[in-house]
């Protein structure tokens, strides 16, 4: 990087800061990759800028690039709603910081309990997003279709906090589309909250498999999350809670174990397993290393594993490789233990929906036609900021 570019970068950062009307605060650590709004808009003309709160002076702002992929090879470039790059501005006078480069579902793997069939509902065929209309993206719910296949909703998200002194409700922006996988629809939903939280979820809905309407099965979604926290030089760590219920002292312990080479590992409901992503150059005004933590949002009681090796872990951490998008190849991606310290990192997460058919899904009529539709079941994950803000931007000013 030459001196001229450094100077330009500094000037731009200064402009962003001076343009603010808010009271000056202590500046966060210098961004590794300066944000250039003009370039970003050229790179992503359909980007969404979302301020929170939605009325009055902005406190936090998301810049969200999104696109639809509808190709013929979801093994190398999975179809569907793709999010990224995404930037967060944590205060009106703060710089925009990149959080994500590319977030999408890599695959949906659907094994049926008898052992067959075992469907890969994304990677092997050209399933793509289906249409959205005012019926499923109504203005009355804060919705507005932003393409024939993608809905944007800006809405209240319920209580943000409530204490002795008051209460505040939160807001969020949600982008979603639905993959048309023949009899099923897979909803791909990405939420960006006012407090910096990102949530990725999937839902399965539609007709049970013709000919096997009553057979139990699992819908696994595997997300590929190319996270770039303030640039591409990131680190990953495994977070765990340990506690022995037989220990009368009642003590518990949390551990942070750096992940130095590519690996996969499991989630346990007892350990609060999570993956922490940091950038060694990214700290908040308190001098704390900022991170985003990948936290499972497990619904339905568990996460299933199957014969296929790539389903044996809920988390995987791999170095970025433009040719690696296929969840089914994750074991190959980590073979040879490529290093992931101070690297461009990709995190993968598998969520599961256990679908035990029920009468509420449908029933056969007298002509043996299936009548009914399975209602949405959801699973997903959260990317939660940890020491990204200097304090809560939605309470009193930082002490």
């Amino acid at each position: 990087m030459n001196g001229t570019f450094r100077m330009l970068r500094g000037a731009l950062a200064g402009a962003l800061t001076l343009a603010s009307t808010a009271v000056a605060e202590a500046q966060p650590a210098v961004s590794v990759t300066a944000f250039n709004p003009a370039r970003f808009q050229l790179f992503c003309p359909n980007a969404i800028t979302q301020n929170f709160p939605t009325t009055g002076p902005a406190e936090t702002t998301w810049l969200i690039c999104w696109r639809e992929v509808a190709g013929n090879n979801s093994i190398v470039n999975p179809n569907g709603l793709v999010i990224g790059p995404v930037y967060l501005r944590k205060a009106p006078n703060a710089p925009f910081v990149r959080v994500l480069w590319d977030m999408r579902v890599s695959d949906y793997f659907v094994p049926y309990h008898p052992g067959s069939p075992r469907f890969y509902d994304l990677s092997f065929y050209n399933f793509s997003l289906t249409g959205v209309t005012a019926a499923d993206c109504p203005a009355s719910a804060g919705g507005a279709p932003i393409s024939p296949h993608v809905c944007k909703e800006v809405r209240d998200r319920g209580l943000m906090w409530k204490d002795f002194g008051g209460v505040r409700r939160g807001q969020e922006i949600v982008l979603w589309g639905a993959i048309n996988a023949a009899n099923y629809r897979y909803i791909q939903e990405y939420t960006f909250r006012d407090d910096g939280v990102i949530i990725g979820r999937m839902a399965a809905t539609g007709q049970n498999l013709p000919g096997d309407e009553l057979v139990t099965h699992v819908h696994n979604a595997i997300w590929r999350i190319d996270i770039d926290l303030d640039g591409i030089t990131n680190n990953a760590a495994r977070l765990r809670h340990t506690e022995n219920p037989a220990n009368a002292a009642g003590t518990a312990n949390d551990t942070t174990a750096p992940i130095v080479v590519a690996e996969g590992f499991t989630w346990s409901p007892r350990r609060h397993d999570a993956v922490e992503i940091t950038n060694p150059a990214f700290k908040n005004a308190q001098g704390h290393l900022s991170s985003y933590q990948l936290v499972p949002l497990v619904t339905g009681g568990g996460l299933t594993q199957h014969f296929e090796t790539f389903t044996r872990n809920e988390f995987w951490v791999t170095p970025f490789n433009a040719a690696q998008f296929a969840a089914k190849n994750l074991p190959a991606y980590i073979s040879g233990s490529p290093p992931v310290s101070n690297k461009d990192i990709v995190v993968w997460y598998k969520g599961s929906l256990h679908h035990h058919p029920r009468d509420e899904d449908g029933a056969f009529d007298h002509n043996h036609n299936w009548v009914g539709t399975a209602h949405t079941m959801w699973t997903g994950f959260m990317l939660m900021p940890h020491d990204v803000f200097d304090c809560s931007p939605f309470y009193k000013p930082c002490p």
Partner: protein
Amino acid sequence: MARSCTSSVIIAVAFVASWCCVEKAPAQAPPAATAGSVAPLTTEERLAVENAALSDARVRAIVGEGQPRIIITGLEIDKAEAEAFLASELATPPRRLVSVVLFNPQTNQAAHALVSPSDNRVISAGSITASDIPFVRGDADQALALAKADTGLRRAVGDTLDRYEILESDSDARVPFAAQALPLRSTDPRDFCSVDRCLDLIFRSEFGFLPVRAHVNLTRRTVEVHGGGQHR
């Protein structure tokens, strides 16, 4: 202080002006990179990409002699180039790269190539397994033709079988007799579909999905009928 305030206002105006360029790029700006919607290939570009892939020595060495089937599978951009563009280190937008799969049925060998359409050059090429060859519309049409010729399926579906047509995922058309394909994989080594290319076909009439599937092995050109009588 007054000078500082004036500077702030000027810079703020400049900032807002640049922000307002969202809808319309300034005249001197580089062309849009369109990450939000990578510009599709023109017919000429598509032909040039196919020729570049077919004439590449690495690709030919992988797929062998004969005419391979070519599947243009999508457009990508290079992350490093995109990063450089966003950081103003690169004046031009990142190149579009075209992902191409070539499959030679005579040799049963397949290659994946990444082609730069701007200079009709193969950036990288490598072999892929047959199981990594994506199913496309042609496979679904072939499966439906095999299914329609199967007497067992005809017994299960009836004469309306002839009226079914493949409905693609990106179509919301309300066709009265729609057949849809689901790629099949098996982990059971005794199942041919652990190796072969197999599809399940499902059928949707005006009354909903039929409780039957056609299990089609495209490699062996066989059809099995599944379902049709399960009640609780």
